[in-house]
C-alpha cells in the first residue's frame, strides 16, 4: 500500500525524465551531447510561467481539453498496480474504465486540435483516431489474454497475479503479449518508428501536429500528460513482463521503476536505429501486435490446459 503510494508519487514526479532519457540515448547514438536529462522540467516551468495565445477560431475547448485529458491519465494511473503492489482503488472490471479513460483523453486532445481549425492539426488528429482505434484492439486483446490467464478482472489482478509459476508455463505467451503492448506503447506515445517526436516536418507528425496551436500552461499540461502517458503504457508493458511474486516492497518498487527507465532506454535505442515507418505501414504493424496477442490467446485457450 505505502509502496504503491510511493510509486504513484514517483510516477507523477519522475515521468518527465522519460523523454529526457530517450533524447539522451539518441544523442549518444548520434554522437552528440544531447539536451539535459531534466530538459522537460525546465520546459514545464517556463511554460507554466508564460501566458497563452489562443487562435481566433477556437471556441474555448482549447483551454479545457489539455487539463481534462491530463486528469483522465492521472485517474487511469490510479488503477495501476504501481510498484508491484495492487492498487487500493481497484474494483472488478476497472481495466475497462482504465482503457476508456485513456481513450477519452485521446478524444479530448483530438477535439482540442479540431477546435484550432487548421489543416495540420486536422491531419494529426485524423491520424491519431485512425491508429488509436486499432491500438484499442491490441490492448483489449492483451486484456482478454490476461483475463483468461489470471482469471481476474481488475487491472491490478491482471498485471500482478501472473507469478513465477505461470511464467514457467506461459512465459512465451506473456512475452508475445508484452511485445504487443510494447508496440501499442510506441504508437500511442508516437515514439520510435511510428512517429518522429523531434521532427521539424509537420507532415510527419502525429501528436506534435495536434498541439501546434497550444501555448503556455496548456502546452505544459500536454507535455506532462504525454510523458505520464508514456509512464502508464511503459508500466503496462513492464508489469506484464515482471513476475508478480518475485519481489515486493522496496525491491519491487526499485525493479519496477528501473525497468520502466530501461524501457525508455530501449525506446531511445529503437528510435536511433530505426527509421520512421510510412503512415500506411503503421496500421499493419498494429495489426501485427494484435495478431501477437491473439496468438497467445489461442495457444492459452487450446493448449494451455483450460
Amino acid at each position, binding site marked *: 500500500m505505502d509502496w504503491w503510494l510511493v510509486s504513484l508519487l514517483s510516477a507523477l514526479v519522475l515521468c518527465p525524465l522519460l523523454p529526457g532519457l530517450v533524447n539522451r540515448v539518441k544523442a549518444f547514438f548520434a554522437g552528440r551531447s544531447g539536451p539535459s536529462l531534466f530538459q522537460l522540467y525546465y520546459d514545464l516551468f517556463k511554460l*507554466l510561467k508564460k501566458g497563452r495565445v489562443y*487562435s481566433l477560431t477556437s471556441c*474555448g475547448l482549447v483551454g479545457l481539453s489539455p487539463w481534462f485529458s491530463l486528469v483522465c491519465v*492521472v485517474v487511469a494511473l490510479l488503477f495501476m498496480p504501481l510498484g508491484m503492489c495492487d492498487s487500493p482503488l481497484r474494483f472488478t472490471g476497472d481495466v475497462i474504465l482504465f482503457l476508456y479513460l485513456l481513450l477519452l483523453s485521446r*478524444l479530448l486532445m483530438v477535439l482540442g486540435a479540431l477546435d484550432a*481549425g487548421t489543416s*495540420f492539426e486536422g491531419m494529426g488528429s485524423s491520424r491519431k483516431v485512425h491508429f488509436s482505434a486499432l491500438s484499442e484492439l491490441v490492448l483489449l486483446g492483451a486484456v482478454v489474454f490476461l483475463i483468461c490467464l489470471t482469471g481476474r478482472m481488475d487491472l491490478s489482478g491482471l498485471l500482478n497475479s501472473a507469478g513465477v509459476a505461470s511464467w514457467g508455463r506461459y512465459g512465451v505467451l506473456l512475452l508475445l503479449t508484452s511485445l504487443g503492448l510494447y508496440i501499442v506503447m510506441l504508437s500511442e506515445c508516437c515514439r520510435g518508428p511510428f512517429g518522429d517526436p523531434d521532427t521539424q516536418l509537420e507532415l510527419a507528425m502525429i501528436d506534435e501536429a495536434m498541439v501546434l496551436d497550444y501555448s503556455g500552461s496548456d502546452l505544459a499540461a500536454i507535455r506532462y500528460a504525454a510523458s505520464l502517458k508514456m509512464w502508464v503504457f511503459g508500466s503496462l508493458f513492464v508489469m506484464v513482463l515482471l513476475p508478480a511474486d518475485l519481489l515486493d516492497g522496496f525491491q519491487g518498487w526499485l525493479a519496477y521503476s528501473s525497468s520502466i527507465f530501461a524501457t525508455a532506454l530501449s525506446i531511445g535505442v529503437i528510435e536511433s536505429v530505426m527509421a520512421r515507418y510510412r503512415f500506411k505501414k503503421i496500421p499493419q504493424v498494429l495489426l501485427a501486435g494484435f495478431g501477437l496477442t491473439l496468438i497467445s*490467446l489461442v495457444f492459452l485457450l487450446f493448449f494451455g490446459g483450460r
Partner: protein
Amino acid sequence: MSYINITCVCFPRNFIKQRQGVIFAMSIMNIGLIVLVLSGLCSLALTRRDSSSWQIGVFGCIVGCSLCLLGGLWSHAGWSLTRGELQFRHDMLSLLFQLPILVLGLVGGIHSVGYFRDHCEGRQGVYWFFYNLMLACMIWVTLAVRPIEFLLSWELMGLLCAFLVMFNYREKGSGHLAWIYLLACHASGLVLQLMFVFGDTHNSEMLFLIVGLVGFGLKIGFPLLHVWLTEAQPAAPAPALAVMSGSMLNLGFYGLFRHVSMSGNEFFAGTTFTILGLVGMLFGVMFALGQGNLKRLLAYSSMGNMGIVALGVGLGFLGSSSDNIMMAVFGMSGALLHMMNHSCLKGCLFMGTGSIWRAAGELRIDRLGGLLKKMPWTGRFFSCSSISLSGLPPFNGFTGVFLLYMSAFHGMLSGTGVVLLLSVASVLALALAGGLASAMHAKAIGGVFLGESRLPGIDQVRDTCKTMRYALGALSILSFALLLSSPWLVGCFGGVIEHVLCLGGYVEEGGLTVAEVLWQEVFPLLLGIVVFSFLTLVVVAVLMFVCRLLPGRKLIDRKGAWDCGFAKPTSRMQYTGTAFVQPLVDYFSAILRPIRQLVRVEGLFPTRGSCEIRMEDGGIRGFWGPLFRLVGWVSRKVHRLQCGYLHVYLLIMVVSLFCLLFWGFVLEGVL
C-alpha cells in the same frame, strides 16, 4: 409456447389485486392516452388557425405524457384490465419501454414548439396530429395483450411514423424515402402476422422464433433489415425523429421479450442475437463514420447502438443457456441500461440536429463548422451527449457498455466452445467499435461545432429559441441523472431479466438469484464507475480552478491560428469531416466501398480541384437493390404478355382452357 402462456412479468397472474392505487393508475393512464388522441384530433381540426392548433397540440402532448408517466410509475407492480373490447396490461416490462417513449415524447413536444415556430407552413395541426397519435400508439403497443390488438397498434404506429416521414413532402426524392419506410413497416406487420399465426396453428418453435426475429428485427434495424432506419427515417422532422429512433426502435425488443418466448432454445437465441449484434454494431459504426449528413450519421449510429443492445441480449441468453448466471445478468442488464442511455442521448442528439437545422439551415457536416461560438448551449449539450454516446466515461453511455464487457469477461472465464468464442469476439468487437465510435463522434462534433465556420451566412446564425435549448438541456441533465442513478436503476431490472431469460426464479444449489446478482455483483461495480466518473469531473473542475492562479493561465492574446505560419488560415484550409475520417474509410474500404469523385488540379495555373467521397448503404448495395432490380427486370419481361393484340389474348384464353381441361381429365384423371 406462443403469446398466450406468457403471463405478466414480475409476478404470477393470481397476484393481481385490483387495489385502489392500481385502479387509479389505470384510469390515469387511460385518461392520458385519451388526452393525447383528442388533442391530436383537435389540433388537426384547427389546423387552419395555426397558433391555437400548436397550443392544443403541445398542451395535449405534455398533459397526456405526464399523466401516462404518472400512471405508469404509480403502479409498476402491474395491472391488466379490459375496457370494452380492448385489453390492456401494464407491468415492469411495459414500464421499462414506456419511460423512454413518454420522456422523449414530452421533451420532443417542447422542442417541436420551437422547431416549428417560424417554419410551420400552416401545417402544424397535421404535425401535432401525427405526433400525438404516434405517442399514443407506442404506448398502446406496450399495453396491448391479444395478438390482433398488438398487430393493430404495431402497424398503426408504423403508419403514423411513415406519415411523419412524409411530412416534408416537397423535397426531391422524399417520395422514395417514404416508400422505403412504408415498405419496412408493412413488411414487419406481415411477418408478425405470420408469426402469430404460427403461434396459433403450426406448432414449430424454431420457425416461430425465426419469424419473430425477422419481424421484430425489422423494427430494431438488424443488419440487412436496417435500410429504412438509415435511409428513410432521417427525413422526418427532428423532434419526431428523436422520438422514433430514441424509443420506437426499442419497441422491437419489447415485442421480442413480450411475445416470443425463447424458453427451450436459449442457445440458438443467444447465438443469433450475439452475431446479429456484432455485425450490426460494427456495420453501423463503420457506415456512420463515412456519412456526410449529420442526421444520417446519427441514424447509422442508432443502428450500431441497437446492435450493442442486441449483443447484450445475446450474451444474456448465452449465459442462461450455459447456466452462467453472472454472464446472463450482466449481459441483460447491460443491454437494458444501454437501451435507456441510448434513448436519452439519441433523443438529445437528434433534437440537437433539429436546432442546428433551424439555426444554420444545413446538416452536411462539411458545410458546417464553428457553430459552438454561435450556439454555445446547444453545442455543449450536443457534444456531451455525443461523447457519452460513444461510450466514454465519465458519462452515462459508459455504464451499459461496461456491463457488456463484464458479461463477456464472465463468459470467457467459465464458458467453453461457442460461448467462449462469442464472448472473446464480442470483447474485441466492442473495443474496435469503441475506437471507431469515438472517431465518428469526433468527426461530428469537430465538423459541426469546432474550428472555422464554412457556412456562407454564418454571421446571421443565432442560437435557437429557448424552448429548444431547454429541451436539450433537460435531456442532458436526465442523462447525467441516469449516470448517477444507474446502480439503483439496474436493481429494478430483476423481474424483467428473469422473465426474458426464462429463469423464472430457478436457482441451482449455491447459485445466486438474479436479484442477488444484481445487488451484490452489478451494484458495486456501477457504484465504482459512478464514483470515479464523479471524481474525475470534480478533479477537472478543481484543476481548472486552481490553474487560474498560475501565471500561465492568463490569456495574453487571441490571434489567428499559427498553423506553421499560414498568414491567414481560411475555413477552406481546415480539415473537413470527410478528410478527417478518410484514412479510416480507406482502411475499411472493403466493406464501405466509398465512391470517390476526384477532380485533380492540373496545368500550370490550376483551376480548383475537388474530391467528394460518398458511400451507398451496404444493405441496399449488397442485397435489396439487386433484388428489386431483379423483380423489375422480370416484370418488364412479363409485360410483353399485355402486348395489345386481341388475337394473342384470345389465344391465351383458348390455350389455357385446354390446359385446364388437360389438367382435370388427364393429370388428375377425375374421370
